[in-house]
Structure formats: structure tokens, C-alpha cells
């Protein structure tokens, strides 16, 4: 650990405010690696200041839909996981007393050998328990991950089946290139959208870019690239407010897409309005 200096307190403040320069962060990390009571105390004290600073923004409530969406994801994952790891119950840790046995006298050397065997066995048991514990933790994490993926897939499968789903078949505009067939499905309830491309052949040195059309202009949903069969599916977790999202469009861009995520750089070659 480097010796404490007053300047380190300034770096603690910068870290908390989220504005520390990289070189300073590394220097502070080196300093704190061995522990520094003065800096640790300052970090604890100034963290209260940060909580206060956040409250400088006027408190606001988001749309109730945010709460609904968060809780629907959480509940689906909790249900799929069937609850995460819970502490072992008291009953599972109950100790059963064994009846006592008459003792025999053992020579000292035998006791020493027995103690050595016990020590080796204990160490081996501890190592095995550690390995098993790690494997169990890994298995739990994998199960939770699979459960999350399953819940996510279910949510996407619900998009086309949603009673309020809106569809847009994107119509080709004059472009001089072979255009894909594109259909967009948008669920106003979850704000998810799935856009399917077929017959997608990207001209050399170019890329097709997908756009959501909103009142304040288009918003890029990214460059679309097909698999070898010419198929692509774009999943958009939040395509926008139902009252605002009106259409989808596809532009033909230089390779890599438009440099401006709010404006196509090339011509719009496909467009379609969402219909109920």
C-alpha cells in the first residue's frame, strides 16, 4: 500500500461521483489494495453525499407500464426458477446423538497415526466438499440462466399471439436492388416487436438498416444481416410507445449502417405502416 496522502481523499470523492479519470482510479485502487482507514472512512462519509446529490433531481414516477413490465418479467422468472437458493431449514440440520461406547486404551503411536489419518481424511473431505459446492453453485446458476432464457422465449412467442398485435408488411420503394420481403409484428402491451426478413441479399459494400418511425423522427434498430438462407429475424425489446410508433422502414446504407442513429444516410427502400 502507498502511504496515505490528502489527495487520495479527492480521488475517493471523484470515484463516488462517477467522474474519476482512469489513471486516478488505478492509482487509488493500488493505494486501497492494502487497506487505508482514512480513505475508507471518507468513502463511507461521502457516499451519503452522493445519495443526497441523486435527490437533487425532482422525484418522478414513470408510467405504470414500467412497473407492470418489470414485475411481469420478475414473476415469470421466479415462477420458472421455482424460487432461488434458500437457506437450509433447521430440520435439515438436526443433530442425532449416537449411544456412547465403552472406551479402549490405545498406545500413543496408534493415536498419532490415527490423528494423521484423520487430518488427511479431513483435508480430502474438505477439498471434495469445496469441489461439490462449486459444482452445485454452477448447476444452480445454469438452471437459473435456462429459466430466464425460457421466460424470455415465452415472452417473445407471445408477441404474434397477442390479441392487440399490430402488423406491418413493408412495401418496396424504387431502388434498383433486389429487396427482401419484410413483415413486422408489434405488441403494444409489451412494446416488443419482431421483424422477419426473407430473401435478404445484401449488395456488396452495403447494408440494410431497420428503422422505427416515431413522431420525432426515425430511430435506428440496427443493421440487418441474413443467414445463408437469406432469412433474418430482428427482435426489438422496446420498439416504442404504442401511441407514438407508427411504422417501420428499411434503408440501404453503406456497409456498417448510417452514422446517425436518428437519420438514414441512404435511401429508404422499404416502408410499412402498422395496422391493427
Amino acid at each position, binding site marked *: 500500500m502507498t502511504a496515505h496522502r490528502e489527495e487520495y481523499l479527492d480521488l475517493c470523492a471523484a470515484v463516488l461521483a462517477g467522474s474519476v479519470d482512469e489513471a486516478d482510479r488505478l492509482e487509488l485502487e493500488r493505494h486501497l489494495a492494502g487497506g487505508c482507514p482514512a480513505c475508507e472512512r471518507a468513502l463511507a462519509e461521502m*457516499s451519503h453525499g452522493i445519495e*443526497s*446529490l441523486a435527490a*437533487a*433531481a425532482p*422525484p418522478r414516477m414513470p408510467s405504470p407500464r*414500467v412497473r407492470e413490465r418489470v414485475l411481469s418479467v420478475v414473476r415469470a422468472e*421466479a415462477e420458472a426458477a421455482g424460487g432461488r437458493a434458500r437457506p437450509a431449514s433447521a430440520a435439515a440440520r438436526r443433530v442425532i446423538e449416537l449411544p456412547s461406547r465403552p472406551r479402549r486404551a490405545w498406545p500413543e503411536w496408534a493415536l498419532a497415526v490415527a490423528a494423521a489419518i484423520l487430518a488427511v481424511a479431513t483435508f480430502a473431505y474438505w477439498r471434495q466438499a469445496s469441489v461439490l459446492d462449486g459444482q452445485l453453485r454452477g448447476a444452480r446458476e445454469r438452471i437459473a440462466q435456462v429459466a430466464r432464457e425460457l421466460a424470455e422465449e415465452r415472452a417473445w412467442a407471445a408477441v404474434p399471439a397477442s390479441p392487440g398485435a399490430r402488423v406491418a408488411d413493408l412495401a418496396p420503394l424504387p431502388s434498383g436492388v433486389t429487396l427482401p420481403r419484410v413483415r413486422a409484428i408489434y405488441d403494444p402491451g409489451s412494446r416488443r416487436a419482431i421483424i422477419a426478413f426473407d430473401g435478404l441479399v445484401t449488395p456488396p459494400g452495403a447494408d440494410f438498416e431497420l428503422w422505427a418511425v416515431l413522431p420525432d423522427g426515425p430511430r435506428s434498430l440496427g443493421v440487418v444481416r441474413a443467414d445463408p438462407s437469406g432469412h433474418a429475424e430482428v427482435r426489438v425489446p422496446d420498439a416504442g410507445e404504442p401511441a407514438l410508433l407508427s411504422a417501420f422502414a428499411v434503408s440501404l446504407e453503406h456497409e456498417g449502417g448510417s452514422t446517425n*442513429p436518428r437519420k438514414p444516410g441512404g435511401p429508404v427502400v422499404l416502408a410499412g405502416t402498422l395496422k391493427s
Partner: protein
Amino acid sequence: MTDQELDRRCMDRLRAGDPKALEELYDRHTPLLYGMVLRIVGRAPDAEEVLQDAWIKVWRSAETWDPERGSVVAWLLTLARSRAIDRLRSAASRSRAEGASGGEETMAAAPEPAASAAHRELHERVVSALGELGSKQREVLELAYFAGLSQSEIASRVGAPLGTVKSWTRQGLMRLRALVPREEPA
């Protein structure tokens, strides 16, 4: 029971997989988190996306909260702010962020009536405390926390030496702590 104790109990239940615990935390802290996120990203649709991601992250990584390293609120604020700053730094937000310089107009906006009286009172106390700081100290704190600028960027923005910006940041945080005391853990 203090708010901090309620939060810690919620975190214990969250780690055990209880969705109701997240619901309680959401209702208790969303006005603070959403106000902060909205101040950073500037637009309600972006702020709602960021907030939604942050709460789902809270659910999925509850076990990473370490009570030794700070309060639940501090952890929630860190998760939400880092996402908000990422959004702010995206190409789409860059031009607006530089123009807004920390969003003075949002700062001046009135709290929403739907936010609880406790949140509104805390906000008023903090605004009043910030008013007691020097204008440069206040500007430095706001540029750091809400505009996501580094200390070097702030120094060049306000035209002050880097060392001065660093000490203003520390003095500002210490002063805020003194002016707006928070409840201590029981």
C-alpha cells in the same frame, strides 16, 4: 423499523427469490431513481427503458449487493446511474447531453405530486443545501453526477485547474453530507 432496515430485509427476501420484495423496493425507491435517471437521459421514453433495465438487473443480481459496501439505496442508485450514463453516452444522446450541460431546466422542474411526501421533502432539502454551496462546487458536482463528465472534462468545461475541480468535488460531497444528514443504520 428504519427505511434502511426495511431495505435490508427486502434484500434478504430478494436473494431468496421473492418477487414481492422487488415490488416493495420498486415502490419505495422508484421516485428517487427515476428522477435521477430522467435528469441524466433527458427524455421520458429513454428514462423508462433505463429504469426498467435497472430494476430487472436488481432482481437478477441481488446476490451481488454487499451490505458491507454501502446501503441498498446507494447500490440501486449505482446500478441505475451507470445505465443512464451509458445511454447518455450513446451516439444518439451525445449532442443533447453536451447542449444540456447537466439539464438545468430539469433541475428547476417541480417534483411530481405522485412522488411521496418523503421524496419531495428530501428533494427540497437537497436543493436548499446545494444552494448553500458555492456555484462552482455545485456545477462541478452536477456535471460529474448528472452529465457523466470525467474530472478532466469538467476542468476544461468550467475553466478551472484539475486539482481545484477534485477538491471542489470532495468539499461539495462533504458539505452535502453535513447539510442533509441521513438516517444511520441501527
